[in-house]
């Protein structure tokens, strides 16, 4: 039996490079898992009025921030050292964009905890509590789907997120209606009404971030961004066809 042929230096280099890319994916998915955990946890804090846990979640955001920065710096470092092309470059850029969406989603849960402190002690009707719980479930579901779409490079799921998000948008509208009704019946004061509207908006924004992640995943796989639509309209209006980047990029341009 002959001795195994050692991999060439170039092969070793490729292997190390792919390990780096795998680590990038692992880290961004770990970040996503941390963000997903904050959604039900923050909602429980809000509905339970737990001030100690609220502070704990706010403090825990530092770890999410730290990991976000590390992953983003890793992206730049890989681009600088490995000069990735085409699909790999889009993959790394997508990771850097996902980091920002995830980090912002975690910030929104921090905002919800801060709002819960501002309306501490205010009794909430079963209808409003139910709407909050439903929004939390929907926001978490969207974020998990978005991360699954990234992990599986699933364009069908990625582009479906904007339609799935309609449920959360409707819940937000229902919440605004419930806030108006509760205030008109003197069940909540104006301050609580404003905080509830903000909380509802924060959940809706988490859904928007999940949709953004879906768009980025679709870009990663296909090279098409939603901003291309506006660019196409502008190109049509001005009659200019060059420089707008509206041709779908090819995998190996």
């Amino acid at each position, binding site marked *: 039996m002959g001795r195994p042929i050692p991999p060439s230096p170039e092969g070793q280099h490729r292997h190390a490079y792919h390990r780096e890319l795998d680590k990038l994916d692992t880290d961004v998915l770990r970040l996503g898992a941390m963000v997903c955990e904050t959604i039900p946890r923050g909602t429980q804090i809000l509905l339970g009025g737990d001030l100690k846990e609220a502070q704990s979640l706010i403090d825990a955001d530092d770890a999410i*921030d730290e990991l*976000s*920065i590390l992953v*983003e*710096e890793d992206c*730049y470092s890989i*681009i*600088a050292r490995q*000069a*990735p*092309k*085409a699909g790999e*470059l*889009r993959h790394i*850029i997508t990771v*850097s*964009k996902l980091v*920002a969406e995830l*980090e912002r989603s975690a910030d929104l849960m921090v905002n919800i905890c801060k709002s819960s402190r501002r309306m501490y002690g205010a009794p909430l009707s079963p209808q409003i509590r139910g709407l909050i719980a439903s929004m939390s479930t929907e926001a978490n579901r969207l974020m998990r789907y978005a991360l699954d779409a990234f992990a599986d490079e699933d364009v069908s799921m990625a582009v479906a997120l904007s339609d799935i998000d309609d449920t959360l948008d409707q819940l937000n509208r229902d919440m*605004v209606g419930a*806030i*108006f009704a509760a*205030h*008109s019946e003197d069940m909540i004061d*104006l*301050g609580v*009404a*404003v905080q509830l*509207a*903000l909380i509802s*908006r924060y959940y809706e924004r988490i859904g928007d971030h999940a949709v953004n992640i879906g768009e980025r995943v679709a870009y990663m796989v296909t090279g098409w*961004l939603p*901003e*291309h*639509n*506006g*660019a196409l*309209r*502008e*190109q049509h*209006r001005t009659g200019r066809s060059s*420089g*707008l*980047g*509206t041709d779908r*990029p090819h995998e190996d341009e």
Partner: protein
Amino acid sequence: MPRAAFSEELESLRLQVEVMALHVGEALARARAVLATGDPDVAAQLIAADDAIDAMQVSLTEHCYGLLAREAPVAADLRLIVSVIRVLHELERIGDLAIRIAKAVDDQPLIAAHAPVFEVLLQLSDNVIGRFEAVRQGWSEASTEPLDVLETTDPLREFADPLVSQIMALDGTTAVRVALASMAVGRSLDRIGDHSQIMACRLRYLVTGDPVYLADEVSW
């Protein structure tokens, strides 16, 4: 690509970001006008002009990706390109937030009828536009000096707290509607300020090379 040609391309990229920032500045001025007057024509102009901003974002972002793939830049050149990618995203988001303010045009008469809330919103929008313009100027001059103005104002204390106080003082049958509409506009303005701060952090990172400013970004 020869070094001189690459440098020229980077300079051209910087100039195109400036042009996009000018368009976003126009969008902010129109958003302020919609808030002040409730003019639906201005709101429509703002919304229509956003396609040009989107087009610039697509064109320049793809240009940046092309440069990364083709030139494999390092050090300051890499910092410039990744920073431009980030700034393009922030500018596009500011444009979207300006649209959000324009879409509140139907609620404008209601907000304007409540002078204390209306006045604070107008002051906040002036402050936010001032901060955006400072960052835009900083990018234009590749200098952090214009950013000094960002340190001299505390929008939270000067505007956000008074806005909440004025909203809490509302009463009557329309109080909730005015409160929610005002908070929505106020929050959009607040986020525009945050995106401007992120651009300022990027500029500081770009000028100094100190990654501590990247860490500052996540606080906004």
